[in-house]
């Protein structure tokens, strides 16, 4: 039996897919969708850059999670030694951690620039109000990412900064709400191993799930409404 040419295999796969979904039509539509010329301005790229950075953060975060140990018991704590291990021993660990760290900083800058562009050009106006709300929520989530990620290295700076943050959150009125937030975040009488466990869970499971969901909604809205009118 002759070995089929790779092109024939590809065609067969495309045909198989086409029978189950209008696949080639979808590719064609995606490729040749029209975009207004004014959207070529550099500041229309900010949203795309935010997306690229979020993907980069998710990927580097997964790689860091392979070695990170969310345990704050003992001195030095395994969390601290694992970050040290990533930084100094793991092959290219310093680069992955550095990329995650600087990517987070760049992400905040790009989100602010993107929001500024959307505000300045009035892209939040009808029918895009809901997308604006989704965007602002995503911005808050990104700040929450930074806040929870800050504690993970479990060094002195991270510990005391988190202690202040939790203290502030605990002072929110009414008293019951403040106490409730403090208990939820801290997980004990003082900032300790349960706090790290909770921040790790929020940073690695809860927030990524929420941001992916909101990104999906954000893109669906963009797909439905397209690019807004020029200023």
């Amino acid at each position: 039996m002759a070995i089929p040419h790779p092109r024939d295999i590809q065609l067969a796969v495309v045909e198989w897919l086409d029978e189950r979904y209008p696949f080639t039509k979808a590719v064609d539509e995606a490729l040749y969708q029209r975009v207004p010329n004014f959207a070529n301005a550099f500041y229309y790229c900010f949203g795309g850059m935010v997306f690229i950075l979020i993907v980069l953060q998710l990927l580097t975060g997964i790689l860091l999670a392979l070695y990170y140990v969310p345990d704050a018991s003992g001195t030095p704590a395994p969390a601290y030694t694992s970050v040290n291990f990533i930084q100094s021993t793991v092959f290219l660990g310093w680069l992955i951690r550095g990329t995650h760290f600087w990517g987070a900083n760049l992400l905040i800058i790009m989100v602010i620039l993107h929001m500024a562009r959307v505000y300045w050009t009035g892209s939040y106006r009808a029918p895009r109000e809901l997308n604006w709300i989704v965007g602002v929520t995503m911005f808050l989530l990104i700040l929450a990412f930074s806040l929870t990620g800050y504690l993970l290295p479990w060094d002195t700076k991270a510990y005391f900064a988190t202690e202040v943050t939790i203290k502030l959150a605990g002072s929110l009125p009414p008293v019951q709400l403040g106490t409730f937030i403090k208990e939820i975040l801290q997980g004990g009488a003082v900032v300790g191993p349960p706090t790290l466990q909770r921040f790790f869970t929020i940073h690695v499971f809860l927030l990524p799930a929420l941001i992916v969901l909101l990104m999906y909604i954000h893109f669906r809205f963009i797909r439905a409404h397209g690019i807004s009118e020029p200023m």
Partner: protein
Amino acid sequence: MGDQGLVKKGPGAATAETQVPVIEVESHGHNLEPDYKRLPIGPDHILYPVVVGLALFPILMGDAGHHLADDMPDDETHPFFPDHFWPYPIIAVLMLVVVGLLAFFVQKNLQLEVSADPRTVTIPRPDWYFLFLFQLLKLGPELIMFGVVPPLIVTVLLVFPFIDAIAGPRLAKRLRWKSWPVPGRNIYTGAAFVIGLAVVALLELWALAGPLFCVPWPLTGMVCGA
């Protein structure tokens, strides 16, 4: 092709009239690009699996709604691929290079301090993106500066499209403006934006100036940087 398609140039010469076939496919009121302009990437092309990734977008995100480009003449629009798409892979690579270089050359920010010990005493200083908030807390009672001002700003930001849509036209009517422009062309919302950014920048710089840079503040006495 009939005789009408032949153009005589010079004695006895006959050449076929150049015709660019336009593929009539419904694409939101636009004809697809003429055949000669389209990329020769069909289902049998070696690069087809690469462009297939783009198809995931409409598959996952559903059909496109009515876009602004659908009502614009062809010469004021361009195809998404490759005209609009090509900068993004370059931007992605550039950003990767930038963060890689930062990770390589600016190691100082990545160095760990000693392992956390609750018995030590350290005055914490948050990262740059929370520094303005940290400084804001010093300007008044903590309860107001943390529990009222930031939630209020976030709420205003969230509902701003509705504020702009409801209060904007009323103000425009009072000012006898024909319409309520977007912030980029609006003295009120534009100025609010610039002032807001300036306040954040000032608080940030104040905090960055360090603990020795103190300014008298009417509500809380001397306020120093972080």
